């Protein structure tokens, strides 16, 4: 039976590159994917592209591509990534330039576009957003981007045209893996069962180190060897949809039934209905079995027809968040931090600082869980954190300034003030009909 080996070289936009290079050199891979696009990232990339038309792709693109191309010189592996973000064509041009410089002029590079649906939004102003249920048109003035999660068909087409490096914008994360599987095995796009099985492979690879022992270790309870040297995953997928997850020998980390269970369930909602543009995958009856050291067989996933909808992330200029922090230590630290918090609230009122939401936390005490967990012993150090949402930059500035003023005006012994101000681009999601978009492939 034909099998394909796919490695995962990045689980988020800023991920490490060394484990990916190691996989490319030693992994005997057919493909490697780099998943680098979070929900909001593409909106920020779109803003960058507006200012610099030749930018708008992943900020680490050149850094990564240098190392990827060098590894490709040693051993050919097909590379698939969504690092194109808001500008896959510009990213592909950049990659072309870099490949040329390295004597890789025969490398075929494809850009997949078609996810940008900003110009189509006015047809859908009345649709409710998934976050609030309010109609999209309420955000009209502030919208900066709209990108649909594409399925795998653009990637499949790029591979058919002989691409060695495929650069996309927004695609559903598992599509980075489903694309090569559909291409290699000739699975039909209504072969729901195989699409579902390919989707679980993509789902397990898309967060890279999270299935090989990353985000898993709890010392003494769930131990992982050499986590500092975490190896990234390899999936071996058969033409029948069979799947094994493993990693390279000589790397740290762990591939166990437990690590795979955590990652199968990760970010699912209803496990029987995992909606993707290509199919509705069903992981409810998934099973895992350890079949070797750092090798787990995953079975039992299946698929059903897709729901005919594409999720679209709409980026909009939302607000500003101003923040300040200060630490207190020693006897009565918590009481001094709490007093400092009360002082800030009164000061913001006195200054007439217009905010729509305020949050005051004592880090080390209640910043993660509020009152959910019973409080323990008196802490020896506490960090007060004040954050507020405002309409204007000026108002947001006041928050950090007021926390800073606790140095000379607040309770005894405050130290280590930091302040920050962030301009917030938020994301609202809407569901659009999937015949709205068709991916385009540009070979460079």
């Amino acid at each position, binding site marked *: 039976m034909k099998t394909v080996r796919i490695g995962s070289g990045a689980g988020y936009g800023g991920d490490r590159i060394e484990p990916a290079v190691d996989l490319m050199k030693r992994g005997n891979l057919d493909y490697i994917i780099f998943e680098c696009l979070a929900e909001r990232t593409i909106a920020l990339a779109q803003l960058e592209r507006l200012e610099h038309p030749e930018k708008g792709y992943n900020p680490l693109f050149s850094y990564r591509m240098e190392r990827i191309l060098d590894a490709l010189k040693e051993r050919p592996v097909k590379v698939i990534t969504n690092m194109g973000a808001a500008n896959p064509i510009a990213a592909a041009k950049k990659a072309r330039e870099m490949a040329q410089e390295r004597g890789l002029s025969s490398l075929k590079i494809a850009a997949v576009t078609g996810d940008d649906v900003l110009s189509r939004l006015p047809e859908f102003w009345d649709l409710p957003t998934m976050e609030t249920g309010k109609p999209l048109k309420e955000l009209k003035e502030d919208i900066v981007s709209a990108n649909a999660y594409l399925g795998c068909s653009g990637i499949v087409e790029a591979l058919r045209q002989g691409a060695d490096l495929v650069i996309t914008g927004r695609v559903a994360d598992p599509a980075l893996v489903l694309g090569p599987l559909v291409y290699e095995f000739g699975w039909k796009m209504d072969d729901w069962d195989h699409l579902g099985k390919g989707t679980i492979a993509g789902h397990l690879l898309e967060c890279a180190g999270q299935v090989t022992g990353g985000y898993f270790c*709890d010392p003494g309870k769930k131990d992982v060897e050499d986590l500092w040297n975490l190896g990234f995953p390899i999936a071996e997928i058969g033409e029948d949809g069979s799947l094994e997850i493993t990693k390279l020998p000589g790397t740290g980390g762990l591939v166990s039934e437990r690590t795979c*269970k*955590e990652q199968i*369930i*990760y970010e699912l909602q209803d496990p029987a209905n995992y909606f993707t543009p290509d199919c509705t995958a069903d992981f409810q009856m998934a099973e895992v079995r350890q079949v070797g050291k750092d090798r787990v067989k995953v079975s039992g996933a299946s698929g059903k027809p897709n729901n005919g909808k594409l999720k679209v992330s709409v980026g909009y200029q939302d607000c500003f968040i101003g923040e300040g922090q200060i630490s207190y230590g020693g006897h009565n630290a918590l009481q001094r931090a709490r007093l400092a918090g009360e002082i800030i609230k009164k000061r913001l009122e006195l200054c007439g600082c217009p905010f729509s*939401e305020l949050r005051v936390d004592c880090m080390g005490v209640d910043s993660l869980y509020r009152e*959910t967990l019973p409080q323990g012993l008196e802490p020896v150090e506490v960090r007060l954190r004040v954050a*507020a949402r405002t309409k204007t930059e000026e108002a947001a500035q006041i928050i950090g300034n007021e926390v800073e003023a606790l140095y000379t005006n607040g309770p005894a012994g405050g130290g280590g003030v930091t302040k920050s101000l962030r301009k917030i681009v938020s994301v609202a999601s809407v569901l659009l009909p999937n015949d709205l978009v068709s991916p385009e492939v540009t070979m460079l």
Partner: protein
Amino acid sequence: MKLYELAHSRTGDKGNISVISLIPFEEKDYELLKREATAKRVKEHFSGIVQGEVTRYELPKLHAFNFVMENALGGGVTRSLAVDMHGKTLGFALLEMEIEK
């Protein structure tokens, strides 16, 4: 006893929804968790954080559960005022929940 003694967990997010898995170390404890870690009890446990519904999904072959907690992330990951805007640390709060053995 605390869930921490019997199970492990990983937390993810989607918009304003927190998604927390609960996985017993031993498959034999699946039924115990099914009885004790109900959606209702988990909603009570997180009453200070989660404003929306809590739904529990069962994965019988993985011997695991998935809790989907709505309106749990201060308006959503992209605009939350929380230090941990993704709510990544919430799974370890679930493991602090007390159950009857």
